[in-house]
């Protein structure tokens, strides 16, 4: 029998000749997940490669074990991988001629690299904590996850796709990751990380929402400011390339965040662009802020951070989940892009991640959308950036790597 040489990916790629095959592949790997073979794990070397361990969110197989953190493709972009059990038919990372490749159904598709380990991963902080447990890395980004809890879960109103709290319980026990970081220690680790030439081009900060404070979320703002001020001590200029994913703050809170820190861009994830679904799937966000107010605050953030420095993120695919979601992908796409355009024309960009159903979540037993859906969504969001001339350099392949739509925007001159 002849060896198979084509896959379903080729069929989809043929329908979208304007979309690079690498982006279609990346999207599908995120959609279906990956399984690392024993041989692929066998070449993992913690001195050379980043290994899993510091994620704020969990994996699709629910396991915490030594695996490559994620993959680099030959166009320099990343695939943020979600290890997935083989019975769910994920892509496989296995070896070909001794090097890691992505396989689908036995067909070798692309050579990949494991993310390189940064120098600071081998060091410990002055308090004796491994530095990689305080700050983690992507190929060009320093990740700070200062608070691994989300207070929306206090009354069980966390987002229906989110496993931050169950991951904290696992990570806290098995990986000894502190739930809340000491800002001075974060500053110390960032200072050490920045000694590596040519490694990092952005500082990134995200945590769960903190509802407490004189006004709701003031405590979250205060904490971010403390951390960013410690980080800022390492830079000559008052502003440095940086991104925060935070709650939708009031304009007054955002002005403090901007004025008192070196922060240069702001992201606040609305998760789903539909008011009814937002209420059902993100009940904590709906309770404390609400869909319309969330959008309003995103737009107000443009006044603070400037055009092309504010965006929102979607967990794409949850809009199609039962029982509340859209019944048809066309309808979901049309509605989502119309809402994204409403934001885009007011200076707010929208990016998406492919929803990866996680076992410890209310939506964990459902499927994500079709590959066609994700490709059409990527094209649609990219087209809005072209139409409204919105730069996305703070959330692109270098700084995040998790958005097929912003990968497309790499070709834009702005």
């Amino acid at each position, binding site marked *: 029998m002849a060896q198979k040489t084509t896959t379903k990916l080729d069929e989809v790629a043929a329908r979208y000749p304007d979309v690079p095959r*690498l982006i279609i592949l990346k999207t599908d790997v995120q959609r279906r997940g990956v399984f690392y073979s024993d041989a692929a794990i066998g070449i993992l070397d913690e001195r050379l490669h980043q290994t899993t361990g510091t994620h704020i969110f969990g994996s699709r197989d629910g396991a915490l074990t030594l695996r490559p953190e994620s993959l*680099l493709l030959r*166009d*320099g972009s990343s695939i943020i991988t979600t290890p997935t059990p083989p019975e769910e038919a994920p892509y496989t990372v296995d070896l070909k001629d001794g090097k890691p490749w992505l396989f689908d159904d036995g067909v070798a598709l692309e050579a990949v690299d494991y993310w*390189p380990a940064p120098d600071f991963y081998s060091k410990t902080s002055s308090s004796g904590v491994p530095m990689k447990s305080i700050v983690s890395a992507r*190929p060009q980004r320093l990740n700070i996850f200062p608070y691994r809890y989300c207070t929306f879960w206090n009354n069980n109103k966390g987002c229906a796709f989110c496993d931050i709290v169950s991951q904290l319980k696992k990570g806290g026990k098995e990986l000894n990751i502190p739930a809340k970081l000491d800002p001075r220690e974060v500053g110390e680790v960032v200072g050490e990380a920045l000694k590596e*030439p*040519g*490694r990092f081009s952005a500082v990134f900060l995200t945590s769960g929402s903190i509802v407490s404070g004189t006004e709701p979320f003031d405590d979250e703002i205060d904490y971010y400011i403390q951390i960013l001020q410690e980080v800022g001590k390492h830079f000559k200029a008052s502003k440095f390339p940086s991104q925060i994913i935070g709650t939708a703050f009031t304009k007054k809170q955002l002005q403090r965040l901007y004025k008192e820190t070196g922060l240069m861009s702001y992201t606040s994830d609305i998760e789903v662009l539909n008011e009814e679904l937002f209420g059902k799937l993100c009940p904590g966000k709906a309770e404390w802020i609400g869909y319309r107010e969330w959008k309003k605050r995103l737009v107000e953030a443009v006044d603070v951070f400037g055009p092309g420095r504010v965006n929102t993120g979607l967990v794409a695919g949850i809009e199609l989940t039962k029982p509340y979601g859209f019944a048809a992908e066309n309808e979901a796409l049309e509605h989502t892009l119309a809402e994204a355009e409403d934001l885009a024309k007011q200076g707010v960009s929208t990016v998406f991640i492919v929803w990866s159903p996680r076992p410890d979540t209310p939506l964990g037993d459902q499927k994500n959308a079709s590959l066609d859906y994700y490709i059409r969504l990527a094209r649609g969001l990219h087209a809005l950036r072209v139409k409204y001339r919105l730069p996305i350099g703070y959330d692109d392949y270098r700084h995040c790597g998790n958005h097929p739509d912003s990968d497309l925007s790499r*070709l834009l001159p702005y």
Partner: protein
Amino acid sequence: MSLLSQELIDLIRNRSVIKVLVTLDEQGAPYAVRSPFLQIGDTDELVHLELLEKSETNRNLLRSLWHEKKIVISVGDLVIRGRPVKAHISGPLFRQYYEQVRTVIPDADLSTVWLIEPEEVVDESYTIRKQQEEEQFPFSVHLDRLTV
């Protein structure tokens, strides 16, 4: 067998020889720039160091990689046709070139280390091309050159 002759290797290594990289933009129009750091990599691929992320050349190289379009590099009288096969933005190889660039231009940044696989080398030196032309196309010669 390597496509890179010793003559070509010597030209690439000669810093006084200007190297020109030609890419295609979205409309298919050529765009030519100098590639001052052009060098030969560990496995005979050509290494172009792109300092600027949003340069026309960087975006064109990405388009070539994504959509399998060829590029051209001119070194002295030699023309190399090839294609970009990999973009390094992180890791030991990137760091090596990042440090190299900064020894030459202290405040420089480096966007991407492009690996370019040569597919064909054409010798465009006049004496060689003239001989080929006269052998293969004898009817294009001006007759006054052939008179006694």
